[in-house]
């Protein structure tokens, strides 16, 4: 309990509460339950990607190709939808997750087998993925009237008052909370990033762990790819352009250490919600677009400063006696 009180998650919860308070003072309708549901739904893609990114960052890597993976998978499923309009949604979901996972594996293999720095690998694949969309379509868009109705309806279908998109985010949060805290693989992610040498001695293959981290991130990006294009009912080369940075920002705000080894699923969830609330509030509180960017940027800087403060390990005093000797 004491640990929770001092934890990053509680700090974030308080910050989110304050944020909602400030917003509601300017625009009371923002905290109406129906609007909060809409905000959560709008933030769901960010939550999905942030969880994948968190796992990758835990292993001392970074995945800059998530948004490009999302766009490519989104385009591929859209093209499949045009070719085979009657394909059941379950099959479509499977294709999206599998295709995204394969793209993630490609990142993972390069990092694992060729030992190329992850930032370079994913910077490269980011461009490759976007380029592939252009090759597939020659820059043409897939538009809402070309997509089948079931394809578009899935993420908006409401179950118990919540759209399917939100339910998927909730399911993934629960699934990965269990994976990260209760399974060998989950603990291996922490070990591989926290102390790679110790992890190796403990029998963990660090490279392979990183490979799986990239695969999971890719699979989640693929899943989000389908949800994204069906929600906005359009697929084109620049879908979610620059979104990878928002995803990394959500992780950083959520207390995930860029140095690896520190972070949690609830942290990533709250970090994503924090950014999602800001993104949804700024349009209604009537702030100049130039200030919007400055506010989002300011929130990130504050979070990084807090991170640096919280994660600074106090230096160990090796010779206690020597210290008192003088």
């Amino acid at each position, binding site marked *: 309990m004491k640990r929770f009180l001092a934890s990053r998650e509680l700090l974030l919860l308080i910050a989110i509460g304050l944020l909602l308070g400030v917003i509601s003072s300017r*625009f009371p*309708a*923002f905290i109406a339950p129906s*609007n909060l549901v*809409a905000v959560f739904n*709008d933030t769901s*893609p960010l939550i999905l990607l942030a969880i994948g990114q968190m796992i990758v960052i835990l292993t001392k890597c970074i995945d800059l190709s998530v948004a490009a993976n999302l766009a490519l998978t989104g385009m591929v499923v859209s093209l499949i939808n045009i070719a085979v309009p009657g394909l059941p949604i379950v099959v479509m979901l499977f294709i999206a997750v599998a295709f995204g996972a394969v793209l993630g594996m490609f990142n993972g293999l390069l990092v694992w087998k060729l030992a190329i720095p992850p930032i370079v690998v994913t910077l490269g694949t980011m461009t490759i993925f976007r380029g592939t969309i252009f090759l597939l379509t020659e820059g043409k*868009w897939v*538009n*809402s*009237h*070309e997509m089948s109705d079931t394809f578009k309806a899935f993420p*908006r279908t409401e179950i118990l008052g919540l759209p399917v998109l939100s339910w998927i985010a909730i399911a993934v949060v629960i699934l990965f909370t269990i994976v990260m805290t209760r399974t060998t693989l989950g603990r291996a992610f922490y070990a591989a990033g926290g102390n790679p040498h110790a992890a190796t001695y403990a029998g963990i293959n660090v490279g392979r762990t990183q490979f799986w981290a990239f695969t999971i991130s890719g699979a989640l990006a693929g899943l989000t790819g389908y949800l*994204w294009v069906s*929600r*906005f*009912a*359009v697929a084109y080369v*620049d*879908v*979610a*352009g*620059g*979104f990878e940075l928002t995803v990394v920002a959500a992780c950083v705000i959520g207390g995930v250490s860029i140095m690896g080894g520190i972070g949690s699923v609830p942290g990533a969830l709250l970090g994503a919600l924090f950014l999602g609330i800001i*993104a*949804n509030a*700024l*349009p*209604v509180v*009537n702030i100049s*677009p*130039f200030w919007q960017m400055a506010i989002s940027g300011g929130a990130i800087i504050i979070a990084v400063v807090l991170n640096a403060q919280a994660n600074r390990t106090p230096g160990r005093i090796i010779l206690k006696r020597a210290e008192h000797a003088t």
Partner: protein
Amino acid sequence: MKRRTFTSLVAGLGLAASMLSTTAVAQDNMRIALVVKALGIGFFEAAAEGANEAAGELGNVEIIYTGPTDTTAEGQIEVINSLIAQGVDAIAISANDPDALVPALKRAMDRGITVISWDSGVAEGGRQMHLNPSSTPLIGNTIIKLAADHMPDGGDVAILSATATATNQNAWIEAAKEVLPNYEGVNLVATVYGDDLSDKSYREAQGLMASYPNLKAIIAPTTVGILASCQAVTDAGKIGEINVTGLGLPSEMAGCVDSGATKSFAIWNPIDLGYSATMLAHALAKGAEAGPGAEIPMGRMGSVKLDDTNAAAMADPFTYDSSNIDQFKSIF
């Protein structure tokens, strides 16, 4: 390299084919070449359709519709060279590069060929005149008119633009604000920016609907913005209450028009553009002078007046609605 050979082969075949055809027709025919950015693009195929329509009206005019197989300046230079060799009377070009084509087009003008650019312009030295599809004041007026047309009693409208620094959009919005007093009852309540990202534009549209309950129309002079607004209005169940309008492409907007979220929108009409370019090229080749202030007729599209740079704007953007969307959605 292989591709280059293929392009020149195509150009060569085209040359041979047109030589054959010229021997077949009477010599007093005027031959106007419509050179496009690349073959196989719906927008330009439609422009060629307009050019042929103009040729039919003029009589004794033969249109040579040509262009490279990919959108490169080098490809267009090869095409221009082959057209010079054929001795066409006029070239009307939509350029892949404003400067790279100038030497080749100058050579054409030295040989007495009339050269104009349309759609995408050539630098001043490389053409006699340039035809813009529209102009900033015309676009600004059109986007307000589109909203006003469907609000007989007036009401609140909002603009959802691309980025706050987008030059084109800002100029159009400024022009729109200037003509606003001409539309009584139309009240512009906000201008927001979706950064040409679907998720941000969608959120901004949602924000507009939440902040302004009496909103009657969202005007988005950008393709990403208009689609995202249309989706946001659809998802909010406000089709019929809020009309999404602005600038978009028929192929992308067909769904929005079908659902009723968009009653009408605008963009240049490629058929009119090809028609006007042909009419202008014909007039200049017949001896009309292209100079600042000159007024040149272009058939059913009226006439254009050249500005200081010998450029002119064709017309208001063309309005698309449920009556013509099916015809155009397969074109571009």
